[in-house]
């Protein structure tokens, strides 16, 4: 695979190509497993395993995608600003929604920890799973968890949200765009927000806002929940 070491575009090409392919397949089949993010991730992992390419080699090629994530996250405030009047009008609904969501999330993790008889380290590693990766690593580290294990769990949560969010909203009859957006952002950070953006402008804006709000609330609440187990 010498060729792959000397070119920098194959990784981006594989990622973009499989994402696009997943998108087309999903539109054609309406099947949840063709979620583009999941499809592209699984395909790329298989590709690397089959051709025995190190993750580090891949990452050297693909990190240009990761570099622009920060500027893109900064831009999440643009749709939010466009929905400023809705934000002002519904500030209570947004805040209470995020707060109850964070408490529900942390409580369910606590119950799972009791059920599976986890160690305290494992418990605090999973605790910040629903917030954006950089924040989750900080929380995990501060509470004595394993940050490098927190990250894949955060990502799995994001992919899960990206895949099932729309269905869950339908099942629970969550139809208000604001409530939908807040729910998706609180449960599955920026990866879910990417989906919310596709659903609609209001959903996307509220989901963006919820990343910051739920992240901050989780930082505080996790330090409290850390004492419960």
């Amino acid at each position: 695979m010498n060729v792959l070491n000397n070119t920098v575009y194959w990784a981006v090409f594989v990622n973009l190509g499989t994402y696009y392919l997943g998108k087309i397949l999903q539109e054609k089949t309406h099947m949840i497993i063709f979620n583009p993010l999941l499809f592209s991730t699984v395909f790329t992992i298989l590709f690397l395993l089959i051709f025995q390419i190190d993750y580090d080699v891949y990452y050297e090629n693909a990190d240009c995608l990761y570099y622009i994530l920060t500027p893109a996250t900064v831009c999440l405030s643009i749709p939010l600003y466009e929905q400023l009047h809705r934000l002002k009008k519904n500030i209570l609904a947004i805040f209470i929604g995020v707060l109850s969501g964070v408490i529900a999330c942390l409580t369910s993790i606590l119950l799972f920890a009791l059920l599976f008889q986890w160690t305290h380290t494992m418990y605090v590693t999973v605790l910040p799973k629903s917030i954006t990766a950089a924040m989750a690593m900080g929380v995990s580290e501060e509470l004595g968890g394993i940050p490098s294990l927190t990250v894949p769990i955060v990502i799995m949560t994001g992919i899960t949200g990206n895949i099932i969010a729309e269905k869950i909203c339908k099942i629970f009859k969550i139809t208000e765009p604001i409530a939908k957006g807040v729910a998706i952002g609180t449960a599955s950070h920026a990866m879910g927000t990417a989906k919310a953006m596709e659903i609609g402008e209001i959903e996307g804006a509220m989901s963006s806002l919820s990343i910051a709000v739920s992240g901050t609330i989780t930082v505080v609440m996790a330090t409290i929940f850390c004492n419960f187990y």
Partner: protein
Amino acid sequence: MKYIKQFLIIVFVSFLGELFNCLIPLPIPGSIYGMILMFILLCSGILKLEQVKKTGKFLLDIMPIMFIPSAVGIMSQFEQLKDIWFQIILITITTTIITIAITGLSSQAIIRWKKRKESKKNECSE
């Protein structure tokens, strides 16, 4: 030139966000500081929406693909996940469902309650 200027502004705000992240000892990433900063700049009118909108919308449109490299990174954690992967998948799906349901339903309840109150008020004033 239009895009260069817009990208310049966005990159500068990102840089400021990372600067905050270095200076303030809280587990808040630079991107979140940058997002808050951009929001303040827009609200205060220092930045006009048009000065960042086109490039910003482009970045948001392609945002999903930016998660792929870190998602693929799960493969380098296979060893750590191997004994607990079933628990992790179970907990990930369950808590995501619970969180979406509780958050959405509680915020929807407040929105509807407010709407009812408003329509009642309107009836009274009529």
